[in-house]
């Protein structure tokens, strides 16, 4: 087969620009795929690792409903049979004073006291200093921002007064100690530091108290046995043992992101596959004569396919060889920007194990699939008509095409996106007829002179091909309009949507369960400004396919929710759900939780807390932003019934006067900076969503333009084929009467016709599908918004691209020497 490789290479080199361009497309496709898959792989691994690190490989935790408990238990647990390791923790809040003046928000510090600083459950990687002295330990990034080194001291505010505390060690960043990445982030994120448990106890005057004991079981013992032994030791009522469950979905719901990434990568690959298909098709068309000769000589269709296939394979291999290194650079860039936007500054290692073989396989498979149709066409080349270069009569469309198209059009009214799919398929079938219709209209318009008339006739002659190209442009435009209108409507409704499930206009969370005293002072502060609701929530476990998972159950004050709900549902109005929640053990699940659970409304869900099982009946699925939807709501009454009375850790406030919202929020933070860990107003959240959307929109517009460009390539290739078939005809025109300019004009008009038809169908399709989408989709967030800017952009870029695409074929048609084209027959 060596000769065919040599010949394939020669063929590829002969058409330099085309080969390079196709290769470029493939490299882009492969690089994007690689970057995307690697990013997802890395993100998944990183999430897993992070979680493990954060929880320190602990199997179980001992906590108290009261917040703290006696340190005595640490010792007891440590000596219990089967316990490999135990670590005692205490988390406390304070303010840190640095050399530079900083706001109160930015000075929040949380110190974690640890019973053992070099426990193997911690993984402290000491960069400078040592752990044996008295003082705090901070991560490298924090040290850099504070501009301190080991030996320096910082002023920390304790209840017992301000103290100068020495920095004894700087360690590599770990989730336990992760602080803000810059001072702006410090507005929303707290600084963290570690110190020995005894020191922290001293500072906070809570000797011999701890918040949590993290336990690592010895693998050699049976887990249930160890659990029993431990529980025997827990004499006090407020203490409970909780299994540590690694549910990454709790902290990082990146599923949607993964999906989007895959979609983008997949789209890139699809686009490059389309370009390959198109180019190959033109190749085969151009070489029909060659193929006919080879068949005459005695090459079987199989062998002819192999020849073209080897060209495809050479390109694939080159694409992979060039694309993968570029992909890994792209990947690094993508991951860095992605993870920094999540404010993760953990060093990550790029994962390739799964990515590399996947991309290589796809890099060969997808071109092969793209080549299927052109190769089939190559095998069907009719020998005689192509030896003599006589153009074949184009077959007319079978009648059933029209029938199927019309039938499918009726299916447009089906709900849930099926209607939209029906429309797409219907338009695919009806495309030639629509094109014919529009061409007839164009003929009557007589706008474009004689050249225009000829151009329209040419388009009619190659109806199917013109229709296909217009269709591709139309689909791109339609998709653009659809998504753009969805974006616009989401944008318009951000405020409205947020207010549906924000629960008021300020949300806050507290460091630790509030003591009664604290609760009173907070209530006093809020009084006069508005209403408030403090509530607890609980992390419970549940099982899916024998895999332990966990989510949060929120205690819902139904009275508050009647005014300011934290979730909403539109089919069943909220009030009915709230009523039902009051009765029995009813629960509603957030969308994500419902999806993960996989059950149906009316079924029961079993959750675990501490080896105790609780059953609830799922009465609904609701939309909520709490825990990104990976959560559930039960009424306060039921919550308290089932779980021990837990002190509240979250709060909802509704400030009466919206003007005072921001001011009030700031004052709250000021007063209770040690208690509040997180506070968010509805305006801030709205702005955040707006910003994200404004960030995505330009990206998306670029994608649409790229897609239109690709459709333009399709138009270009289609025109090239059309010209090839008509070389002699054009030669005659030139010889007899037409100037080059007139020929140019004719071909450009042909291109523009395809563009106009494509744009027209695309806009109609886009508007219809947007409208249908708004009507039929159950999510009331979407209503029909006319995306004017995308519309105008599509029209102009669509037509512009088709004019541009026509330049090359027009040039080609006039460049050929007159004599050669006349001899073509």
């Amino acid at each position, binding site marked *: 087969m060596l000769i065919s490789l040599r010949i394939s290479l020669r063929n590829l080199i002969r058409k330099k620009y085309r080969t390079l361009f196709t290769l470029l497309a493939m490299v882009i496709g492969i690089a994007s795929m690689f970057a995307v898959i690697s990013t997802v792989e890395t993100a998944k691994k990183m999430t897993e690792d992070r979680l493990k690190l954060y929880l320190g490989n602990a199997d179980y935790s001992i906590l108290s409903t009261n917040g703290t408990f006696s340190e005595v238990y640490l010792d007891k647990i440590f000596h219990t049979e089967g316990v490999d390791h135990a670590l005692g923790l205490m988390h406390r809040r304070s303010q840190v004073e640095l050399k530079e003046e900083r706001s109160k928000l930015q000075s929040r510090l949380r110190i974690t006291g640890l019973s053992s600083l070099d426990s193997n459950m911690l993984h402290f990687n000491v960069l400078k200093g040592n752990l044996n002295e008295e003082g705090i330990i901070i991560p490298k990034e924090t040290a850099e921002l504070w501009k301190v080194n080991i030996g320096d001291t910082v002023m920390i505010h304790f209840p017992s007064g301000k103290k100068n505390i020495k920095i004894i060690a700087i360690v590599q960043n770990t989730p336990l100690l992760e602080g803000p990445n810059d001072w702006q982030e410090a507005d929303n994120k707290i600084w963290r530091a570690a110190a020995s448990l005894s020191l922290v106890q001293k500072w906070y005057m809570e000797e011999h108290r701890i918040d949590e004991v993290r336990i690592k079981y010895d693998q050699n013992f049976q887990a249930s046995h160890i659990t029993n032994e431990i529980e025997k030791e827990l004499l006090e009522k407020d203490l409970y043992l909780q299994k540590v469950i690694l549910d990454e979905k709790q902290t990082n719901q990146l599923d949607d992101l993964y999906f989007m990434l895959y979609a983008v990568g997949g789209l890139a690959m699809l686009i490059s596959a389309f370009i390959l298909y198109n180019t190959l098709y033109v190749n085969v068309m151009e070489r029909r004569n060659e193929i006919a000769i080879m068949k*005459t000589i*005695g*090459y079987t269709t199989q062998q002819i396919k192999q020849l073209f296939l080897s060209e495809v394979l050479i390109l694939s291999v080159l694409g992979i060889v060039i694309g993968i290194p570029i992909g890994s650079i792209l990947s690094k860039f993508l991951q860095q920007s992605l993870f920094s936007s999540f404010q993760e500054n953990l060093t990550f290692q790029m994962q390739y194990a799964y990515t590399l073989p996947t991309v290589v396989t796809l890099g060969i498979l997808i071109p092969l699939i793209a080549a299927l149709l052109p190769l089939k066409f190559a095998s069907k080349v009719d020998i005689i008509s192509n030896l003599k270069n006589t153009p074949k009569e184009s077959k007319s469309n079978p009648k059933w095409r029209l029938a199927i198209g019309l039938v499918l059009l009726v299916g447009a009214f089906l709900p849930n996106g099926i209607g939209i799919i029906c429309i797409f398929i219907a338009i695919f079938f009806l495309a030639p007829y629509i094109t014919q219709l529009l061409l007839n209209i164009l003929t009557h318009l007589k706008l474009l002179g004689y050249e225009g008339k000829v151009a329209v006739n040419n388009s009619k002659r190659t109806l199917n091909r013109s229709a296909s190209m217009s269709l591709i442009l139309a689909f791109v435009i339609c998709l653009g309009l659809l998504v753009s209108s969805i974006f616009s409507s989401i944008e318009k409704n951000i405020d409205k949507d947020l207010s549906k499930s924000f629960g008021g206009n300020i949300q806050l969370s507290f460091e630790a369960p509030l003591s009664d005293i604290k609760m009173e002072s907070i209530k006093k502060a809020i009084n006069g400004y508005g209403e408030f609701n403090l509530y607890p929530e609980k992390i419970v476990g549940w099982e899916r396919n024998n895999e332990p998972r966990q989510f949060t159950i929120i205690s819902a004050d139904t009275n508050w929710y009647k005014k300011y709900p934290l979730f909403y549902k539109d089919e069943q109005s909220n009030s009915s759900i709230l009523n039902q929640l009051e009765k029995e053990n009813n629960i509603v699940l957030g969308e994500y939780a419902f999806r993960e659970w996989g059950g149906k409304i009316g079924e029961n869900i079993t959750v675990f807390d501490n080896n105790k099982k609780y059953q609830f009946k799922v009465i609904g699925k609701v939309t909520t932003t709490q825990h990104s939807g990976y959560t559930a709501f039960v009424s306060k009454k039921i919550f308290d019934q089932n779980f021990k009375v837990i002190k509240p850790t979250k709060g909802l406030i509704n400030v009466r006067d919206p003007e005072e919202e921001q001011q009030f929020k700031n004052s709250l933070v000021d007063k209770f900076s040690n208690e509040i860990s997180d506070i968010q107003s509805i305006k801030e959240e709205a702005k955040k969503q707006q910003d994200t959307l404004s960030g995505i929109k330009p990206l998306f517009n670029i994608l649409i333009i790229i897609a239109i460009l690709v459709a333009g390539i399709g138009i270009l290739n289609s025109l090239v084929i059309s010209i090839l078939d008509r070389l002699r005809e054009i030669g005659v025109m030139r010889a007899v009467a037409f100037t080059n300019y007139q020929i140019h004009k004719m071909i450009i008009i042909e291109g523009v016709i395809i563009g106009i038809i494509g744009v027209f169908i695309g806009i109609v399709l886009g508007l219809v599908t947007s409208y249908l989408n708004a009507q039929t989709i159950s999510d009331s967030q979407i209503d029909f918004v006319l995306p004017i800017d995308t519309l105008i952009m599509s029209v102009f870029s669509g037509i512009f691209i088709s004019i541009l695409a026509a330049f090359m074929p027009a040039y080609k048609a006039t460049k050929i020497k007159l004599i050669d084209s006349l001899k073509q027959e």
Partner: protein
Amino acid sequence: MINVRNLKKSYQISDDRYQVLNDINLDVSKGEFVSIMGPSGSGKSTLLNILGGLDTPDSGEVLINNINIDSLNDKKKTLFRRENIGFIFQNYQLLHNMTVEENISMPMHADKINKNIIEKQVKDIIDAVGLKGKEKNFPSQLSGGQQQRVSIARALIMNPVLILADEPTGNLDRKTGTEVLKLLSNLHRNNHLTILMVTHDIYAASYSDRIILLKDGHVEMDVKHEKEGENVDLITNILEKLNS
């Protein structure tokens, strides 16, 4: 070697049906050099195409060495063509992205023959057609006559039993055409080939042993050369004409 019985072929172009071949009966023996002549549209090329398996008849039988071509499936037809038939076309039909060598050796590569055998055979045949020194040239670097020689070489490379030539001198001037015809004639004589040549030029047809005239889709005339010498009369007749 070739037996054609009741061959019929027609074409449909929009509303008209053209009966191109209307009940053709024909026998060609091994080693004959036959010319098929006739006005354009008389179906000569169609007949050739059907004999070569490039086109299918509407009805009738075509046997080459007692094998019914039409009954073979596509792949078998191609293989049969590869091993038994050599085509020569008016416009040479060479592949422009291949050298002379590669063009000629193409059928052998399709047959997956050993590289060394290919080399030797190609070399021999290049000598036989008089293209020595042009092995590495591309068709665009050759004259019309040289290109036709390449075409002939390619047709012969697999030692076919039958050569089908469609207006082989159509694109050549008289002088070059004559050279090519002489080459064909020599090859016919030395290798005992069976050649079927379609031509509209009686001068080209004179190089064969037998001339068949097609008219309106059937055989009008089938004239063989009778070996008995009437040569003396030839010259005398002409000279007498000149005399009178």
